[in-house]
């Protein structure tokens, strides 16, 4: 019954797949697919309408082509839009799926989560609560009760639509409208699951909230949707991790993440993206086409994006901030590593609307082999955003035949604001590697030290547990990257 076969090459350790009974849609995308999906999830009419509106608009638009990436055309009719593991008994996660997450180091049971924590004080509650999404559905969310004591809602978006429709209705699509872009529009039509968080007024979320996305099914798109709302004077640190099996075909992942902060609230959103990158010849891998945007709605609110991107065959992703509230703050810290035939086109947009708004962008691109790594950034300081500031720093480090491209766009529409931009691009220094090797470090360790040092500013922004994981992931990624 349980067969966790290892399809992975030796570098990508999460590349196995899980054999489990599933409920799937036949491939194909029509209005009927959208209706069936909505009906299956027993959604209220306004959600069905939201989806249908998106589907109708999707028929009138085309995939964007401006990014520095190339991939074989996606046959949207050949994809399945729903795949969910069958629970043999209700409320009992199949053993093979438990084993999958165990293998990936994601604690599904609260007890297991607790075991991973050094308990110095019995009154200290665990540090991480997890929502786990397997293909099209959320299969478990831990510590919900504990969080509920603080008034925090942490559940799958499907559950939120049922249990908290007024909240979802107010915010869904409020930051990323249905018509925003092709992939966001597609997601709006066919999103299957994802995470919903609401932090009430004045509450500092006592633990890190974590969503772990796992793609397992072949030829199935994953379209998850995340919505996080931080009410006035609240704080939350949210982490996102993901992996996928090593299949020969590309797997489409088109997610939408919307964040909203009210007055003086703060959301710290961290991602360690480790989707399957494809093999050394560029066969297979995840197409990671993601729209992430945060709205600093309230005054003095803050949204901070930190991302470590090592996976995916193609990445198209620009976590952005709309700084609408006066004195609001947006941050973007990114490490993007590409090797082999990987292509990344990633960056951010900082849209300053409110007065005295401040944004910081630190982007570190590292490319090996034949990969290409593009930073694309847009800073717009509007007329109303007086006395605003942006600081941008983009550095790239290259090795082999890789390409690094930096495309920063700045537009400033008032005279009282200041925009600063610093950039550097360089080859990984042979001299530095020689120096380190002369002190006994082998080439791989030497490269790792140089690259880790290069990324330090960004790694420092990650929550502690995540920083160690990111570091380890980076080292695994670097293994074999040096020829």
């Amino acid at each position: 019954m349980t067969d966790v076969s290892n399809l992975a090459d030796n570098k990508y350790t999460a590349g196995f797949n899980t054999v489990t009974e599933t409920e799937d849609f036949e491939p194909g995308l029509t209005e009927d697919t959208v209706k069936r999906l909505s009906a299956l999830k027993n959604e209220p009419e306004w959600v069905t309408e939201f989806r249908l509106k998106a589907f109708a608009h999707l028929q009138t638009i085309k995939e964007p082509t401006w990014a520095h990436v190339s991939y074989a055309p996606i046959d949207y009719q050949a994809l399945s839009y729903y795949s969910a593991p069958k629970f043999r008994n209700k409320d009992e996660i199949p053993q093979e799926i438990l084993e999958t997450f165990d293998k990936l180091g994601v604690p599904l049971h609260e007890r297991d989560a607790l075991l991973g924590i050094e308990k110095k004080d019995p009154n200290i509650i665990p540090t991480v609560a997890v929502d786990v999404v397997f293909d099209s559905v959320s299969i478990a969310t831990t510590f919900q009760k504990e969080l509920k004591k603080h008034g925090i809602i942490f559940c799958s978006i499907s559950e939120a639509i049922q249990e908290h429709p007024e909240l979802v209705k107010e915010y869904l699509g409020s930051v990323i409208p249905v018509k925003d872009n092709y992939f966001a529009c597609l997601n709006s039509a066919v999103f299957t699951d994802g995470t919903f968080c609401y932090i009430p007024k004045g509450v500092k979320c006592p633990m890190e909230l974590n969503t772990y996305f796992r793609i397992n099914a072949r030829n199935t798109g994953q379209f998850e949707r995340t919505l996080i709302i931080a009410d006035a004077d609240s704080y939350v640190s949210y982490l996102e991790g993901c992996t996928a099996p090593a299949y020969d075909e590309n797997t489409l992942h088109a997610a939408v993440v919307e964040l909203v902060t009210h007055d003086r609230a703060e959301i710290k959103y961290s991602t360690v993206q480790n989707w399957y990158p494809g093999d050394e010849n560029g066969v297979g891998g995840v197409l990671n086409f993601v729209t992430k945007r945060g709205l600093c709605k309230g005054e003095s609110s803050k949204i901070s994006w930190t991302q470590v991107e090592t996976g995916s065959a193609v990445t198209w992703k620009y976590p952005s901030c709309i700084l609408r509230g006066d004195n609001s703050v947006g941050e973007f810290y990114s490490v993007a590593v590409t090797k082999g035939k990987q292509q990344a086109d990633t960056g951010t947009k900082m849209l300053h609307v409110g007065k005295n708004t401040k944004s910081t962008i630190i982007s570190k691109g590292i490319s090996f082999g034949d990969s290409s790594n593009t930073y694309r950034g847009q800073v717009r300081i509007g007329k109303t955003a007086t006395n605003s500031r942006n600081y941008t720093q983009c550095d790239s480090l290259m090795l082999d035949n890789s390409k690094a491209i930096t495309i920063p766009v700045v537009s400033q529409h008032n005279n009282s604001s200041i925009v600063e931009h610093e950039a550097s691009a360089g080859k990984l220094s042979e001299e530095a590697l020689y120096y380190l090797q002369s002190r006994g470090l082998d080439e791989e360790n030497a490269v790792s030290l140089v690259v880790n040092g290069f990324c330090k500013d960004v790694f420092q922004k990650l929550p502690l547990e995540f920083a160690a994981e990111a570091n380890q992931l980076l080292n695994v990624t670097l293994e074999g990257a040096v020829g």
Partner: protein
Amino acid sequence: MLVTQEFTVKVDGNTILNDLTLEYGPGIHVIMGPNGVGKSTFAHALMGNPNYDTEGAVEFYGKDLLAMETYERARAGLFISFQTPTPIEGLSNFQFIRQAMVSLNKNNNIKENLSNFRQSATDLGLGSEWDKKQLNLEASGGEKKKNELIQLEMLDPKLAILDEPDSGLDIDAIKILVEKLRAFVDKGDKTLIIVSHYAELITKLNPDTLTILDKQGNAKQTEDIQIAYDILENGFNG
């Protein structure tokens, strides 16, 4: 023990060092020569710098040095100091030493190592925060030299080639340098090769042998240290 036989070093086909047959056993040795004769080349070619092509044979404690990768040479106990050590962003001095000590299979006790590191930095007047500073970044020439000396102390090689360790140091620092070099050799069975023009240093170290490199890339090794003092007084053509 380092023995070179007909050791030739070329860069882009040009011979820099020609047929060197030299022997360095435990003790202190000095290499002298006019500017540009390849004293630094000698050190880096032995360390395995990829910019140099080598011919001949080099035996290092019974091993074929030239067959080894740079990091293997370090692990075999060879150390060279750099004239201009490479800066590495985001890597702290102590993190670097820690990684190097792990690679070299040295004492792995972080607490002890940190305390020794700080002591060494304090001795050299580098301040108490030196362990946290980024490697060779925003450091003066003299500070970088001192940092190389800390590495010599911490990494404790069998044989060290120090390339003008005195340059950029003031009189007081040179005094400490001499003490530290003495202490290194006094551990026993250590070989120290110093490239220097500095009379004071050579006098104080009282070397066992002197190697003179000439512009043709040839070398002469002698135990007659008096020659060194003559050169210091009269120059290489005297």
